């Protein structure tokens, strides 16, 4: 009897952790990119829009071709294109980054809705793949990315399956996190990015190309937001719903602050928020909150607000945080 309860508990925990990692990876990818953009001084409120565009394209491409890799690349490319618009507006034209970002989010949401609208969608799919059967074109879902078990590591009880029986994008996210952390703090280009976000005038005077760095960081942010969107669809919830990002882009933005602009802390935070999302699903499955599901659905956002408020005090006290030149356009004087 006791053993059975334990077994059920372990299984529940395993499943919970596994979906925590999956939900967290969406946020992780988007927030990693935004960390780089903000470290260089560019605030990108377009993350949400770039994610949904990434999700929409991964849906269309997998449906039309069944090629996951192609879907991911196209999703990243399209989101990068949106990031390029943001970069031109905020770096070259020096206009307000908040307005530009929000506009891109609205545009992305609209565009993704339009492209996936059944009639439009069928046209697009047919154009990509003329031999696609009509019945396929009306599908809302595609096969999920396959899980790959890592030998040995996946045998570790509970955490093994949660972290090492997952799909390729999740494994890539582990590597990416460490790599981006290392690059930001241990390499010269990383130092240049951080300095540009703190004091662009000084970096410029020392021969560092402020514009180039800000462009690259912003585009990287866009590419990763696109990857996050692609993962959301093909790696996590492979069922197309309009607006399926559901504000995750904004949670990712909060996460960047929560993580004090460090990739490693972004990872920890992403799993924390991912855990809240997973918990909310589990509770729903267990039959909680059936009378007013809105309250459960609010959980991730409420957590975001609470954590941010608690943290802001700590950050002011320790003086860590906001890149000094964040959201301030740079123009060479004289």
């Amino acid at each position, binding site marked *: 009897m006791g053993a059975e309860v334990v077994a059920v508990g372990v299984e529940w925990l395993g499943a919970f952790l596994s979906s925590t990692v999956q939900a967290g990876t969406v946020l992780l990818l988007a927030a990693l990119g935004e960390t780089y953009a903000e470290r260089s001084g560019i605030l990108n409120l377009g993350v949400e829009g770039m994610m949904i565009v990434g999700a929409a394209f991964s849906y269309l491409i997998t449906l039309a071709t069944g090629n996951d890799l192609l879907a991911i690349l196209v999703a990243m490319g399209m989101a990068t294109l949106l990031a390029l618009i943001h970069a031109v507006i905020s770096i070259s034209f020096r206009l307000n980054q908040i307005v530009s970002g929000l506009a891109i989010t609205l545009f992305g949401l609209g565009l993704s809705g339009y492209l996936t609208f059944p009639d439009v969608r069928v046209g697009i799919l047919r154009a990509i793949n003329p031999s696609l059967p009509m019945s396929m074109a009306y599908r809302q879902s595609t096969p999920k990315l396959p899980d790959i078990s890592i030998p040995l590591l996946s045998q570790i009880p509970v955490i093994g399956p949660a972290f090492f029986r997952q799909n390729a994008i999740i494994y890539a996210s582990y590597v990416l996190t460490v790599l981006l952390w290392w690059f930001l703090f*241990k*390499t*010269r*280009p*990383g*130092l*240049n990015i*951080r*300095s540009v976000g*703190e*004091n662009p005038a*000084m*970096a*410029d*005077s*020392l*021969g*560092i190309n402020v514009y180039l760095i800000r462009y690259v960081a912003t585009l990287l942010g866009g590419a990763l937001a696109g990857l996050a969107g692609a993962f959301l669809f093909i790696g996590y919830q492979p069922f197309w719903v309009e607006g399926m990002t559901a504000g995750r882009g904004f949670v990712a933005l909060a996460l960047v602050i929560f993580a004090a602009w460090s990739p490693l802390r972004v990872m920890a935070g992403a799993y924390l928020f991912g855990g809240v999302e997973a918990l909310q699903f589990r509770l729903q499955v267990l039959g909680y909150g059936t009378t007013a599901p809105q309250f459960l659905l609010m959980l991730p956002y409420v957590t975001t607000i609470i954590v941010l408020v608690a943290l802001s005090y700590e950050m002011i*006290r320790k*003086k*860590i*945080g906001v890149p*000094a030149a964040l959201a301030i356009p740079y123009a060479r004087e*004289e």
Partner: protein
Amino acid sequence: MDTSPSKKLVEMRDIVKSFPGVLANDHVNFTLYRGEIHALLGENGAGKTTLMNILYGLYRPDEGKILVRGKPVKIGSPADALHLGIGMVHQHFKLIPPHTVVENVILGLKSPRFKLDVGRAAHEISDLASRYGWKINPFARIWQLSAGEKQMVEILKVLYHGADILILDEPTSVLTPQETRGLFESLKKMREEGKGIVFITHKLEEVFAVGNRVTVMRKGRVVATMSMEKATREELARLMVGRPVLFRLEKESVEPGRPVLQLEDVHALGEKGVPALRGITLIVREREVLGIAGVTGNGQLELAEVATGLRKVTHGRVVVDGVDVTNKGPRAFIEKGIAYIPAERQREGLVIGMNVAENLVLRYYRYEPFSRRAVINWRMVDENAEKLVRKFEIVTPNVRETTRHLSGGNQQKVVVARELGGRPGGKTPRLVVAMYPTRGLDVGATEYVRKTLLRYREMGSAIFLVSEDLEEIFQLSDRIAVIFEGQIMGVVRPSETSYEEVGLMMAGAKRLEEIPA
């Protein structure tokens, strides 16, 4: 000193630079030799910083030629300058506060290209520091450092980039006397190594302490270059200001009146949340200057902020003109007529992106005649500015100039003018809390500010003066309170004490038993 042509490190010929409305450099000639410390003197706004900014590649000259080690060069940016071995430490620090010392020092270097070897760089920086008798933790973050240490980092940065031509723009204005002496020893060592150093300062005794030659600028022109052996204090001052300067202040003896500011057993926390003031009891009366002497970082900043309502006290009382204003917030203090000259003009004293006229009403803009029912009367604001610019001889093309474009000393004058002369209706302040009020000011302006403080004292104001300059404290104060680790070590009269006694108290080595209020 060897002044043969082969020893010329830098030669600037006929440099002209103008800004809208100002001719900042007017056919300036300047030469720097190997192994010399060349002092650059001049009034506020004379064009010293501009000239050096040109050499450092921050500004492009309108006319003129620059030769470095005999070769004509074009210096388009500081990166170019560093490449030529020219490094500059600015009047206002240019470091990235959340980054470490190492990160600040190596920023902009071209090698190693990709992976940073922070460990090795840290080692080299420590070595470099110890060569000049300094100690610094390469992994400390800039915001954790004192002004003196920041200065050190700036110099290390320049040296680490391999510069042998050093430009130091008023490096001593934020240093304690001890730190200044330390800096001078290091500079002499660098001179022996054959480096050339340009040293900008307003303190004549410093020119005599380390300079080999001196160039004096006035209104954009060079009025004289001479070797130190031929120079005298009076002569240099006269060249700078264009008239003889008195180095003595006439101080009338007046009888102090009622207490204006009373601090009773005040405790307060510092920036990092640790106790900074531990039981301070002081009184400042009408017609009296109370000087606060101490080594920076012993609670002066917190004390000044408590006296102006900017910092909460955790225990004790603050009374102004008999009214308890403990933790009432800064506006209550402003309405009592308290003026404040803060230590860091660019951070606390000014809104650097706003113009001179706006900065000159920042303290009183909400009161008549500057505004009526929340509407600002810009004509009055401009009139006020015109008046103060004239009175305090602020060098600016007009009152609508952005404060950022003023010279360092003139920025300081804007703060001082607002605090000392900006009260509506020409009223004098009840209490002036002045931290290093003459920091960055030339001899003429220093004299004027000190005289003004004394005149207000005679007219009934109470003056609360924080300074590291013992000479200034002794000259101006009626009583001197010495602060050490957040406590008052003693209150003495300048006529009844000595630099030595005050120095001992500043170091915490002596404490008076009886402390008269």
